[in-house]
């Protein structure tokens, strides 16, 4: 019974902390923080510390399952894969490659993701490949591509410690990117000024120098207001603007009537605070700007990102140490999943799928024809399924039933498909709805790479063997390609071979290899001839599009606003103790103990008006559905605003959320909708929304 240790990277959020996995008897029994890791420096958050529970062998799927007469039966891999291949071929021949697709996992490795998009494009001949960045940072990818030419975090995490002003907009880093949140708090202790823009009073807002508690959905109004103040006082960085930007005059004219008074009227933030914030940010030597879902998850998501970019550009707070436009990527490998091209419109390294030359390049490299028609996003696939045009879907490591907006529609879409295959670690709500479930290996059971939010590609190592018959994602796809009659396309023997194939087809990763990644604690892309040791800070001389574009954007109302029937604003949030749909963190008895199942944060005044006691049950309803949960009376939210974490399948916030979309990216407006609440009789427990074993809701 001896202990072995393998160093790896934490599987939860996009910070990418170093973590040591301690194994005994082929089980992960503990984790340890890594002192020498450049980002985590010996720290882990509650989720990281509870990793062993999340991936424990207990409760894991170990064999392929097929739904027969409403029940799951164990089948062999041979049988399952043959069945899937046969059906996919049939759908393609009957309804074309547009009728099938993949959703890959932002938690799986770069290699798994590269394999997924290759499978879609080369084997299925479809561009229907997407993943959860759709509902997370797709506006970042699109918006920053327009303004800078590149959608990734421009600086590095340790730039937090080099800034004298830190501006956090629409993000709650102490809860989800806890190590970065901690670094922000430390920077504040060492003298940096902290400005938080958030409709909720988050932990960082409590310690901040300035909390701009704006009305939800008014980001652009606030940002345009700040621009107006900066121009009025001549606080902009003229030198930077003239050398590095274009569109200044149009932007300045555009915000000319976004006066302080008008901004205050729309956002609810005091004029004096707006001026203070504008001054701090623009006059800082180095200002680090971080943002999250509070900017992206809106119908105006892409424009919100552009507004953020405008602010950073006119103040010249980019391209240097301690500055930057820093979207906090949520998942451990969502950056990687995007980089690997698991998006319908781009190949790896963001090479456009609509570009004939790109297609020809990959076609040559892969020795086969590749997908020709434009692809669907995940929401597009669901929409087409509901209309009978989309028939077969493979979902890797995601739980859209819990995490995607407008849950009823999501479920409808899944039921409408002819074949739903879910590849997962454990039985999630989405897995319950599947026709076939394939057991997957967790991060501790395979080798590969993750790319964190600061573009750092890091190696993970195998510590234990996969349980039962579980397999690694890319190996499953390899075998499926074989069953589809195209074995030579995915003929890798090792994970390293997958990585090497990918790096040769891209520019940003061309300088990377496993040995080089090992030596350097990972490498930040772009890592190529120009930047052989990777890139700490992007855009120090030019932007990929040459000069940065300043693009005027307008404040618009959110798709839904409160009215007589649904009088409250509703928003979603994260808790420190849980992650995503909770499938991993809720296996820890320690984390599960921290909160009651499902919470609705409500201001004490609102609670009083409704006669609600703390932790009393309520029914929350929106135009799309309803959910029963418990209230948490808190000063975190303002009167009229309710907030709910999305981690709990018993009280899924996504029954309520709106899938009205950002036209640029199909990002749904998860962050805001209108709801009503009705108290349950005191003492009556809320009913759970958990699906039954075969995927129907217990009503």
């Amino acid at each position, binding site marked *: 019974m001896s*202990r072995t240790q393998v*160093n790896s990277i934490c599987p939860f959020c996009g910070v990418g902390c170093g973590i040591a996995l301690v194994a005994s008897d082929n089980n992960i029994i503990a984790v340890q*923080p890594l002192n020498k890791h450049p980002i985590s420096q010996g*720290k882990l958050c*509650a989720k990281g510390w509870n990793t062993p529970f999340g991936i424990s062998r207990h409760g894991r799927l170990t064999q392929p399952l097929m739904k027969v007469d409403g029940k799951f039966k164990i089948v062999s891999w041979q049988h399952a894969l043959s069945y899937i291949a046969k059906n996919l071929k049939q759908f393609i021949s009957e309804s074309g490659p547009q009728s099938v697709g993949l959703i890959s996992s932002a938690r799986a490795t770069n290699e798994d993701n590269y394999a997924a998009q290759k499978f879609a494009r080369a084997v299925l001949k479809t561009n229907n490949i997407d993943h959860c960045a759709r509902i997370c940072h797709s506006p970042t990818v699109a918006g920053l591509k327009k303004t800078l030419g590149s959608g990734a975090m421009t600086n590095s995490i340790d730039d937090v410690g080099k800034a004298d002003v830190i501006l956090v907009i629409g993000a709650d880093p102490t809860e989800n990117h806890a190590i970065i949140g901690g670094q922000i*708090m430390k920077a504040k202790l060492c003298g940096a000024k902290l400005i938080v823009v958030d409709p909720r009073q988050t932990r960082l807002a409590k310690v901040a120098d300035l909390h701009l508690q704006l009305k939800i959905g008014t980001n652009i109004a606030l940002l345009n207001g700040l621009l107006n103040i900066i121009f009025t006082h001549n606080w902009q960085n003229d030198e930077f603007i003239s050398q590095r930007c274009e569109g200044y005059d149009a932007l300045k004219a555009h915000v000319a009537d976004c006066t302080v008074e008008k901004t205050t009227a729309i956002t609810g933030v005091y004029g004096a605070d707006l001026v203070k914030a504008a001054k701090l940010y623009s006059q800082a030597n180095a200002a680090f700007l971080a943002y999250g879902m509070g900017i992206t998850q809106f119908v105006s998501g892409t424009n919100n990102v552009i507004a953020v970019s405008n602010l950073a550009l006119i103040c010249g707070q980019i391209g240097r140490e301690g500055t930057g436009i820093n979207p906090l990527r949520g998942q451990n490998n969502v950056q990687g999943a995007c980089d690997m091209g698991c998006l319908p419109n781009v190949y790896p390294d963001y090479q456009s799928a609509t570009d004939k030359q790109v297609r020809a390049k990959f076609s040559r490299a892969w020795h086969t024809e590749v997908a020709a028609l434009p692809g669907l996003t995940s929401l597009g696939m669901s929409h087409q399924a509901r209309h009978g045009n989309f028939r077969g879907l493979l979902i890797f490591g995601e739980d859209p039933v819990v995490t995607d907006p407008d849950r009823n529609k999501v479920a409808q879409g899944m039921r409408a498909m002819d074949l739903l295959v879910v590849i997962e670690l454990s039985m999630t709500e989405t897995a319950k709805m599947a026709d076939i479930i394939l057991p997957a290996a967790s991060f501790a059971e395979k080798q590969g790479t993750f790319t964190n939010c600061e573009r750092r590609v890091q190696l993970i190592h195998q510590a234990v063997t996969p349980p039962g018959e579980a397999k690694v994602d890319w190996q499953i796809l390899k075998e499926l390609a074989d069953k589809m009659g195209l074995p030579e396309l995915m003929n890798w023997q090792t994970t390293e071979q997958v990585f090497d194939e990918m790096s040769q087809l891209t520019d940003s990763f061309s300088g990377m290899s496993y040995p080089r990644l090992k030596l350097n604690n990972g490498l930040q892309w772009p890592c190529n001839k120009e930047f052989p040791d990777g890139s700490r800070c992007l855009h120090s001389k030019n932007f990929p599009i040459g000069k940065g574009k300043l693009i005027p954007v307008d404040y618009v109302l959110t798709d839904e606003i409160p009215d007589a029937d649904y009088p409250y604003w509703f928003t979603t949030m994260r808790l420190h103790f849980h992650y995503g749909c909770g499938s991993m963190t809720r296996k820890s008895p320690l984390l599960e*103990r921290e909160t009651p199942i499902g919470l609705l944060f409500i201001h004490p005044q609102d609670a009083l008006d409704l006669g609600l006691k703390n932790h009393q049950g309520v029914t929350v309803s929106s135009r799309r559905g309803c959910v029963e949960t418990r209230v948490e009376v808190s000063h975190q939210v303002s009167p009229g605003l309710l907030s709910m974490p999305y981690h709990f399948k018993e009280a899924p916030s996504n029954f309520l959320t709106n899938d009205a979309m950002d036209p640029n990216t199909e990002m749904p407006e998860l962050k805001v909708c209108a709801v009503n609440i009705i108290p349950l009789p005191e003492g009556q427990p809320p009913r759970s929304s958990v699906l039954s074993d075969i995927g129907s809701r217990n009503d």
Partner: protein
Amino acid sequence: MIDAKKIVNNQYLMNDLGILKRHLAKCYSIVQIQKDVDGENLWTEQFSDICEPLFGHDHLPLTSPKGFLFAEKEELYKFDGETFKTIVPQVQPKVLFGVQACDLSAIAYQDKFFKHDPYYQKRRENTLLIGIDCESPCANGFCVQVDAGPHVKDNTADLVLSRLNADEKKGSSEWLMIAQTEKGINSIKGLMLDKSENKHLKLRKKLLEKVRSEFADYSYISNAIEYLNDNSVPAQLWEELSVRCLGCSGCTNLCPTCSCYSTYEVVEKQPDTPVSISTEVKLEMTQSKTIRCWDSCLFQGFQKEASGHNPSQKAAQRVERFWFHKFSDEYLPEFQRYGCVGCGRCEQTCPGTIGVHSVMKRIDQQCCS
């Protein structure tokens, strides 16, 4: 636990610790600090090549050897539908080779706390402790302030190694080895060893003085301990500090004296269902195990009762209580020392910057004025 009455103190000189290791490897599995490929210092079990152990302040690993005695996860008992049976830990004899003074003081503390715990004691009685004197202060350590080092305290190890001098050119060292316990003496039976002389003991004492003198000024820690015991730290300060407590549990996991645990149940799969979806417990079919795992008093739910009552609802209460447990005189009668051994790990691992140095400095600052 080391019985003070049975201390022996046979003292020897050694030049090559490899001899000692090879001798011990006959009966024990060797566990020691080793640098891995990424440069991390970790407690590692060795099976093959025996190499020179790492010593000195650079090498205090972020994790203590606590997990070898008080396991991170421990199966306690199982139920087969009729009766409960204890699951006895399967342990092999291990030697923890090169434990620093602070960690040894912590083990002595846990020996007392877990005196009657059969799981801890089973592992403990199969463990040989070889301590090593520190030669210089480590980054965050303040063992001097809490009487836990830098030299191995009496009665905390079976064998103590102290490097008297090191010849860098020849690559050799002269070690003083003290066998403190019968177990220690038995472990080196069969080795031909030179006995040390009085001058060697004197040299060790001199080296101790030298190391002690190299420590930074940690008087703020001693001051803060006094303020804590006077209960003169204002509530306001605890509120301010506790905003930064994320409840990550890093401090309690790394603290070598922390001992709180929780239990949870694992129900074995019913053989004919491929996946256990239902959570309803059917007693007659239940094969279950009760497992304990490390817990943390910093979690909000640590004291939360089923009724919802939570005596430590506020983070400020929990943070204060953690420091009370580490530095209060109230625990002295039972443990004859503070709960804190001055290893400083909590400072390194706390993402909220409220580890021991940050907290004690702040208390000293606040209460001085």
